[in-house]
């Protein structure tokens, strides 16, 4: 043992570890350093072990003593829990275990949770509720901070006492609203109609209907503010449908004051069939210009779950003409669905109406979906590229002339 200790001291002194020297001398009070877990220091270990052993199971004692206090308080028998209460308990346990579960969950949400068909559907729904709650909390926190900062700033400025002089006339937002409403009323009499087809309730889930209604609200507002608004029609709109309920939730009192036409008739009964064009991404026909005499129909559907061909099926069934936006023609598409949201469609149609400029209109397509705008169609560009390649490779002049003639038959006639 003595020799071992001597050896230890030698090793310890020769190394550059900071605690080394002191470890060799002091045994008990100094904390065990990880750097010196040598198997040689048996003597020191044994003296430390008994105190450690006691420590290790102490947490159990602490927990059990805490529990005994609790148990003595609640003497009642554990009752049989109803399924809803049991679900709530399980959710609470999951939250403690660290899964993405919200803290407060209402009865309605709990019922939806129980009705979810599969385990993954349940998980996804809980995660959605959790994130919603988290965002709300963060927003509230940020608002509080902003308010505090504003109060502080106000305190500081009120000390300096400056009077602000403004040469602008005071413009209330209600004045602007009145102006917009006058324009909307004018469009109802003279403007071009635009139809939103509200017959997709059965194909969408509740969440998708909420999203659709939100998009329609946005598109209606941007329509009202434009220079020459459309006259918006909601067709196939049934009273007390999901759509109606969601609209009332979003608009509240303003729903009765909106200057749009709402009807439960189909658009084929209101407008003549030859004037209707159904806009859908699945259509094989590509739109070339905006026609001011035709009436465009947009399907109010959000497809979070893929629904290819549904809107086209509706149009086919009624025998209507269809059209798709020329996204492939004017944009170098990278990744993303070619289905656009309703407010994007509204912006595009409004811009097309005012200026027949595809470049300005297609600005409203999300920038992540494409990587460039081409003024001329992509096929034309490909021909030019091909021509340039042939020139580069140094092929004969006749070859180039032939290709040029093939690509641009009208411009260049072979002599």
């Amino acid at each position: 043992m003595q020799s071992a200790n001597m050896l230890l001291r030698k090793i310890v002194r020769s190394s550059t570890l900071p605690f080394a020297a002191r470890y060799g001398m002091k045994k008990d009070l100094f904390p065990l350093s990880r750097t010196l877990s040598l198997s040689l220091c048996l003597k020191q270990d044994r003296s430390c072990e008994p105190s450690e052993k006691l420590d290790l199971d102490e947490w159990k004692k602490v927990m059990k003593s805490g529990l005994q206090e609790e148990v003595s308080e609640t003497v009642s028998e554990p009752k049989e829990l109803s399924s809803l209460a049991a679900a709530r308990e399980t959710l609470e346990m999951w939250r403690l275990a660290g899964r993405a579960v919200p803290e407060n969950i209402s009865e309605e949400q709990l019922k939806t949770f129980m009705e979810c068909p599969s385990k993954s559907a349940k998980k996804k729904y809980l995660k959605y509720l959790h994130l919603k709650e988290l965002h709300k909390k963060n927003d509230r926190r940020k608002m509080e901070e902003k308010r505090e900062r504003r109060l502080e700033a106000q305190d500081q400025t009120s000390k300096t006492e400056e009077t602000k002089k403004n040469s602008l006339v005071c413009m209330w937002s209600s004045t602007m609203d009145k102006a917009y409403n006058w324009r909307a009323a004018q469009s109802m009499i003279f403007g071009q109609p635009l139809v939103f087809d509200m017959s997709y309730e059965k194909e969408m889930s509740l969440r998708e209907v909420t999203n659709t209604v939100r998009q329609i609200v946005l598109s209606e507002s941007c329509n009202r503010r434009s220079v020459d608004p459309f006259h918006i029609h909601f067709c196939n709109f049934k009273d007390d449908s999901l759509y109606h309920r969601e609209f009332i939730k979003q608009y509240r009192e303003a729903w009765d004051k909106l200057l749009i036409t709402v009807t439960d008739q189909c658009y084929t009964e209101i407008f003549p069939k030859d004037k209707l064009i159904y806009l859908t991404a699945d259509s094989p026909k590509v739109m070339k210009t905006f026609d001011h005499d035709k009436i465009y129909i947009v399907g109010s559907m959000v497809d979070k779950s893929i629904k290819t061909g549904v809107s086209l099926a509706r149009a086919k069934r009624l025998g209507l003409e269809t059209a798709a936006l020329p996204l492939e023609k004017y944009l170098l598409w990278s990744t993303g669905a070619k289905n656009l949201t309703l407010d994007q469609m509204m912006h595009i149609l409004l811009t097309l109406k005012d200026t027949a400029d595809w470049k300005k209109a297609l600005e409203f397509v999300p920038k992540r979906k494409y990587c460039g705008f081409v003024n001329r169609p992509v096929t034309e560009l490909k021909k030019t590229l091909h021509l340039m390649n042939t020139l580069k490779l140094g092929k004969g002049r006749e070859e180039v002339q032939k290709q040029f003639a093939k690509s641009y038959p009208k411009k260049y006639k072979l002599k």
Partner: protein
Amino acid sequence: VQPPEKPLQAEEWNKLREDFQSPGIFEEVMLNSMIRCNSPIDVAKSLLTHLAKRDGDIAYNVLVKYLTLCVQQRQVSEICDVYDIMKARFKILESGAYNLLIKGLSNSDQWRMALTLLEEVKKIMIPSRTCYESCIKAASRHQEMKLAFELYDEMLAKDVIPTLDVLQSFFDFSRGMKDAELQKELFDILLYLRENQIYPHKTFMRSIKLWFESIPGGNWRGHLTNIKDSGQCPVCNHQLEDSNLTEEEYSNLSERIIRDVIHGTDTFRKTSPQEFEAFQTFVENRLPFDIVIDGLNVSHIKSRRMQCENLFDAVNCLAKENARLLVLGRKHMLMNSSHWKREIMKEMQNKAEFFFAENISEDDTFLLYATLRSGKHCKFVTRDFLRDHKACLPDSLTRHLFRKWQRGHQISKKNVFPLFFSQQPAFRYDCVVQTTGDTWHIPYKDVFEEKYSYQVPRKWLCIQQK
């Protein structure tokens, strides 16, 4: 973060905590790394002691992670202690904790406690697959086969699908036992494989073989073999079941497909009612066909420039022996373009009947309709697996029938160069577990595949009783 190698005191934990970038989640991260590095249990205990002293209570997720560590290191007494504490502190536990507890206890000599836990879980929710499987394996290990089978039946009744692992364990632990009831139960497992068209992998197959051969007094012998094309087993000369469907099954299947797949919810989505009616009249006037070909699918087998020639080769290949062919094309094939030349199209139309659908219609439904209406002998040619159509069918029985019909009636190409199709489909015999009382034929795969694969196994295990 590296966990310490020795138990630390409270001050050292504090120091580590402050050094860490986000002290709020320090405990979780530390325990995660302990689980990953499989550090000794004492280190975790010291962390828990520190937490208990500091807060007076330990959070639930910390307890669960500690439990994971105990289960990983098989510290049974610790598991029991943690369970007692958790039980007293929280009214009910969640599925993760129960899974761990049952798994940990069933691997020890306190496995009966795992069974009581399982009963507790049943009151709250349907127990997960791992719970059941751990209990079944524990029961089998201790030779309580009756209990194991009871649990297995319960599992099936609650629609919890067993893994192949647990089925294999039944065979492993029943080796050498002589019990008529047990034998019947194990035969039931083999029939379960048959009904669900599951193919065992190599180790499972070996386990089955060893069990058969170990039955005292049974005199069963197993051999690995390949079945001949005619459907005869070279070892026992038994003729395997035919892959054709019976009349009743066939009419059932065709009715279901026409109702669910073709009409489905909206005919307009895949085609239009007028087009479909036109097709129906076309087919009814010209029935029966021998082979129906999906034109567009076949033309894409080789490079795109030779689309027309591809289809031409296929038609020539299959038109031997005066077979009546129907080719489903699209309207764009009639336009004289570089891919579809008019002369070749005319030549083909001499050898086969053609139906041209709209360019945007889906033609799979037409294919299925024509093949089913033509009768049981009719086969179809496409490389498509028709998975989306199988998914439209309502119940698993119809889906199995669809698969069986598909195996027997779908022709795929044999070679790419030269393009060669054989008129006979791949399998004359039905590729599924079969028995005749004193023989069992079991197809098996070499490798265990998680997902359902469309490849049919070629190797078989033949077991016969002498």
